[in-house]
């Protein structure tokens, strides 16, 4: 077949890039631009954390101080968020309540991650334990977390430690399932085989090869657990099964204003707004981390 000669394109050869050159800015600002969700989430969370930690210095009064003369006042210069039905300053209660929510959120996230990690590693690596552990996890997960937490609280006294324990138990199964699936997929990676062939013992394989690669998804999951724990705690306190009344939590505050929300909406409004913002911040952080920590190991191009 005769090949007709190719006419060489004789027009003007345009060169140059089709996109404007990206300014390779290093440093903080570039980081923010590349990961806006992480930036926003952590900024919000940081603000709320500051408010919680420095509550005593931020023009608050004793959150439990009753002041019957000033019951049910709307927001004013004296009480920035108003007062509840017992005359307690809502602004102070909300700020101190932040401590409870954040403390529960973080501690549950940490503890359930640790326990879930251990369970997930064991069931992922030691095959015969897999069935047992996972069935127990399935059993726990089949009960809606809030009901589980309520049931556990019913067995114990209402105290912040017990709230912490019951919510942790409700959150562990999700983490364990995640870690297990990550471990199962990591086990298939050839570099694990390489480590076995290089004479590495199983505990060292878990420590040096599996764990570092499992941490990233675990961290992301921990942020979602944190958000979920905060909501669970608020619900528990709302129905009176949570922290004792001496320790105000956003749920408790909302519970106090439940009956009168139509005429005095600010009692529910402020704790609800803070709770929502905090959950939003944590979720944003989680989403941002998930995108940032995405496996970019195979930089193939």
């Amino acid at each position: 077949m005769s090949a007709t000669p190719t006419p060489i394109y004789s027009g003007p050869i345009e060169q140059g890039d089709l996109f404007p050159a990206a300014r390779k800015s290093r440093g903080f600002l570039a980081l923010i631009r590349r990961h806006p969700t992480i930036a926003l989430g952590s900024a919000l969370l940081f603000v709320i954390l500051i408010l919680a930690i420095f509550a005593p210095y931020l023009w608050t009064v004793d959150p439990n101080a009753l002041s019957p003369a000033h019951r049910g006042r709307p927001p004013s210069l004296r009480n920035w968020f108003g007062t509840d039905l017992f005359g307690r300053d809502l602004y102070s209660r909300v700020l101190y309540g932040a401590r409870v929510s954040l403390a529960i959120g973080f501690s549950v996230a940490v503890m359930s991650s640790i326990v879930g990690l251990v369970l997930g590693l064991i069931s992922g690596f030691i095959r015969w334990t897999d069935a047992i552990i996972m069935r127990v996890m399935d059993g726990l997960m089949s009960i809606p977390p809030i009901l589980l937490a309520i049931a556990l609280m019913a067995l114990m006294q209402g105290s912040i430690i017990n709230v912490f324990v019951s919510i942790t138990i409700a959150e562990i199964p999700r983490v364990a399932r995640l870690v297990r699936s990550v471990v199962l997929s990591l086990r298939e990676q050839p570099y694990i085989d390489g480590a076995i062939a290089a004479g590495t013992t199983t505990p060292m394989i878990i420590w040096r090869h599996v764990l570092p690669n499992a941490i990233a998804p675990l961290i992301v999951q921990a942020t979602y657990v944190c958000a979920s724990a905060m909501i669970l705690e608020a619900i528990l306190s709302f129905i009176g099964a949570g922290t004792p009344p001496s320790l105000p939590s956003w749920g408790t505050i909302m519970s106090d204003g439940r009956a009168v929300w139509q005429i005095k909406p600010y009692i529910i409004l402020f704790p609800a707004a803070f709770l929502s913002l905090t959950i939003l911040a944590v979720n944003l952080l989680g989403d941002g981390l998930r995108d940032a920590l995405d496996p970019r190991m195979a930089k193939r191009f």
Partner: protein
Amino acid sequence: MPLLSVENLRTHFRTADGILRAVDGVSFTVNAGETVAIVGESGCGKSVTANSILRLIPESIGKIAGRIVFEGRDLLGLPIKQMRQIRGNEISMIFQEPMTSLNPVLTIGYQLSETLRLHQGLTAAQALARSVEMLTLVGIPEPAKRVRQYPHQLSGGMRQRVMIALALACSPKLLIADEPTTALDVTIQAQILELMHELKSSAGAAILIITHDLGVVAEIADRVIVMYAGRKVEEAPVEKLFRTPQHPYTQGLLDAAPKLGASLKNSEGRLSEIPGMVPSPKETIVGCSFAARCARVSQRCREVVPSLEPKSADHFVACHHAI
């Protein structure tokens, strides 16, 4: 007039760490009925070239510039609606991975009929009949039974045949095949190549085949284009390319591939290597993109991009020191 004329095609992607110049000024033509192969290693831009012709690059990540003239029309200037009428109809494409190129939840018959009903306006019954015809054409046994099956019930070789049937269903003028046999076993590859030979003559379509396998090129192509780092470095009819390559990279590729039967002729020793590695498409390269690895490099190579020069009526090379 050539069937397809690609003029100064540039396809750039915007990534987090810079601009990726996947295709950086490539021009070539394909005439009716001929088979042109684009050969190169990974990262040279050959697949992106194929995808750019059919404008399968999402707007959000990549931009295509240049002219792609198909039967007198510039494809890059067409509205997407008209582009869709061309895809699968006048220009069709088969992809590398038969496992993922077919929709796993639709039957083979449905997927074949879909393109026939869309482009040729056939009724469901007519489309089904033609689908069975196409399956027979591509050598699938028991086509009436297969038409009702799902992709996972077929083997890799069969799926690739179905892809070919899909591509040829509307009698396209140009078939673009992106690494059609790379994912297949070598005995299945032989079957598919034989099928493509048969269909070449009967279907009359021009074929643009993208591959890294020089053996496949030798078997099926009329003309060959060699790409490196987003640019075209050599173009010639297939025999001239293999017998008298002009570009050092082409020569290097030909030498680096071991030939079956070489040990019997006592014509072996070390495999000739090309030192170094393919540059990343994110790098801006001044001068010839192959300079860093070329044995014939000079200072001029590092400064001036060599332009495509004709060494004879049908043999073009972009090199300051062509062989």
